[in-house]
């Protein structure tokens, strides 16, 4: 069954998949054990002769205590084991220092990605500035935002680098799902949530929306390109020069 999992390329994904398979094998063992006993009982204790009496027995406290205590121990173990991984991937104090921060904004039915540009600093933003042409609500007066650029449905990241995604939504709730990175996080309007990952493989991977956001929910597909650092830098430069080109004419006409 676990062979059906999409290929994992994320660094922490290995730990997650390991936990997944651990729970899977525990479940399979319990399932077959319980059902084997069950089927054995069904065969062994079916009524063979009319009038035969069953065993009159109300239960055994020692058994009750043991089948309370054993599952309790097992489930607590699973909870603490899971929590270790959970803290590593989600607690903010355990988030590694990011090499790249990308802001992601969900809109019905597409994904906007925002990069800080050459200075590595995002321009100030505020929800009140959000319009369909300014999806992140970037403050037009902040000079830091001049070189920021955005893409639609197309995310680029360098390989083997910690990427921090800062996530929100313009309209309804979406969910940012990267099957190969073992990442899923709801994008909630009015709230920014951080989620990080680290891809150890180059290639193109799909981005999906996992939260019903309207009838076009299924169309909310993006592509993430993971490439070597120098290729990524080239891509950034290209995008940046596009931004400069688009900025130039209005800048002159204003003066």
């Amino acid at each position: 069954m676990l062979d059906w999992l999409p290929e994992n390329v994320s660094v922490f994904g290995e730990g997650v998949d390991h936990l997944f398979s651990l729970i899977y094998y525990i479940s399979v063992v319990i399932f077959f054990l319980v059902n084997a006993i069950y089927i054995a009982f069904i065969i062994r204790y079916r009524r063979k002769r009319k009038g035969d009496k069953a065993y009159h027995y109300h239960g055994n406290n020692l058994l009750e205590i043991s089948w309370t205590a054993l599952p309790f121990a097992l489930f607590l173990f699973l909870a603490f084991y899971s929590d270790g991984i959970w803290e590593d991937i989600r607690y903010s104090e355990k988030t590694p220092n990011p090499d790249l921060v990308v802001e992601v904004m969900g809109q019905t039915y597409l994904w906007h990605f925002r990069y800080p540009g050459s200075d590595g600093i995002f321009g100030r933003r505020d929800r009140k500035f959000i319009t369909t042409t300014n999806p992140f609500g970037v403050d037009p007066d902040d000079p830091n935002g001049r070189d920021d650029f955005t893409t639609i449905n197309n995310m680029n990241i360098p390989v083997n680098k910690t990427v921090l995604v800062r996530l929100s939504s313009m309209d309804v709730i979406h969910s940012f799902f990267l099957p190969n990175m073992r990442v899923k996080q709801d994008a909630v309007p009015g709230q920014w949530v951080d989620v990080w990952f680290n891809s150890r493989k180059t290639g193109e991977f799909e981005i999906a929306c996992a939260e019903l956001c309207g009838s076009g929910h299924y169309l909310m597909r993006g592509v993430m390109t993971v490439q070597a650092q120098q290729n990524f830098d080239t891509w950034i430069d290209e995008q940046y020069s596009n931004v400069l080109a688009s900025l130039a004419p209005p800048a002159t006409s204003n003066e």
Partner: protein
Amino acid sequence: MEAVLHTEKHEHNEAHGHSESFIRKYIFSTDHKMIAKQFMFTAIIFLFIGGAFALFIRWQLAYPGEPIPVIGQMLPSTWVNDAGAVTAEWYTQLLTMHGSIMIFAVIIPLLVGTFGNFAIPLMIGADDMAFPFLNMVSFWLFPVAGILMMGGFFMEGGMAAAGWTAYPPLSAIASMGQTLWIVALFLIGFSSILGGVNYVTTILNMRAPGMKMFDLPMTVWAVFITAIIITIGTPVLASALAMLFMDNFLHTSFFQPENLIVPTRDMSRTAGGGQPLLWQHLFWFYSHPAVYIMILPGMGVVSDILATFSRKPLYGYKAMVFAIIAIAFLGIVVWGHHMFQSGMNPLLGTTFMVSTMVIAVPSAIKTFNWLGTMWRGQMQFTTPMLNAVAFVSMFVVGGLSGIFMASTPVDVFIHDTYFIVGHIHYVLFGGSLFAVFAGLHYWFPKMTGRMYDERIGKWHFWITFVTFNGTFFPMHILGVGGMMRRIFDPTVYDFLKPFQPMNEFITINAMILGFAQFLLVYNLVYSWFKGRKAKRNPWRANTLEWQAPSPPPHGNFDRALHVYHGPYEYSSPLTVQDYLPQTTSPEEIEEQRRHHEQRLQQKNEQDTHA
């Protein structure tokens, strides 16, 4: 209050007069058995509507964009395109209405409405509910709500389309159909509260003389605890619904942040400043316990049926009662496990994971006790028993798949995928609905005075059991593959394309599963009129309902009852027969034994003479 008293007196007089009008008897009845039948009848109609919706969904997923066979061209143009294929808009309405109908108009009315109403007074030896008039109101709110919920069909924009969970802002900026959905749910909630209050009062106050709380059968215990959860949880849902209604209708901002970009709606009157996550907390504070509202009565019914047809006392009766209480009260503190990926503080993820893992323990206790009940039994595999046995096995699958989602890191991946769809159907169909099938067949003789057809019952069971697993087990695999729930066309994604054959397999199974349910209806309807006459106690069971005539008249019992034993004294060494009705006094047991010994002696003497 006066009106209630008046009605009760009125009913009482008429019970002796045998001259109730048709409307009084069949429509605005206050008799708990008639109300139970009304719940059953209405819920089964909704079962078929919800099931048809599911089949449209399945058709689209297996054959995206292809016209629906046979009826595709006949459906209204708001639902299908010119070729007769499901549109994306209708698809989101379908999945919303399928979930809402199955949960609020099928499972809850069948388990709580039908079994609760039918079984409680009969099983505790009462002549009716504590508040018969409230009971009638509780029923009549339900079909009204069901029709309102579907009423969006006649509105612009169609029915509600924000999923059965109705997460705002999507549900707060929606069509008129969504508003109707909110009102409908509010009414159903009100119906539940009325029922819940009634059940708790009846069970606490109207038990037959001699019946202690620990003489109650598991069905009654389960409905009792369920009724308590209903009265705690439903008002919270009602408050959330009221807020959502205002967000929709009056442009308030309980759940809407500042400056939402919604081209389809005038947002100038919406101030913003609300919090979408607030809805999720309030909604799941009710809707997680609602999962237990939908499974606990099933557990109760199955416990009774397993004991009866194993001819054995229920293993660990008190442990079973405490397990139900534990599930109910832990169930109130685990709602956050629906929200691990919602943007809630990850620290709360840890908290809710631990509480969720702990709630698996009482479920395990129940499973082991059911196994214990069957151990060294004398099992008879009637239709109710087959369905009850299937319940236990399917519940194990549903319980185990729950652990995956309880574990927060694993949930990151499988959250909002088909894994959860598979899981919830193993609990609500493999669990609740199999318990419903078990209970319907088990009490059919009491309810109608006739026996159902055992052969059709078994056919229905086996087809349902096999195709149920064929439908829902592969969904776990789809989930592991990452297929998101609620998507209209999985072939849009490259990583989901390999799963198309599996989607077809599921759909074929689902169709057989759906059409097999006509067997159930045929069996119930045919047997109701033409079935073999049922005896008073065809299953030789201990509980009180089998001491009443089949079907019980208005007022239920034809003699005064006194309870001497617990409900599960099967195969007791004290008795000659393998069961001991709760009302049999120690003197009667003694007399039966003397009588039996005399007969044995006579037989021996005859043998020696011969």
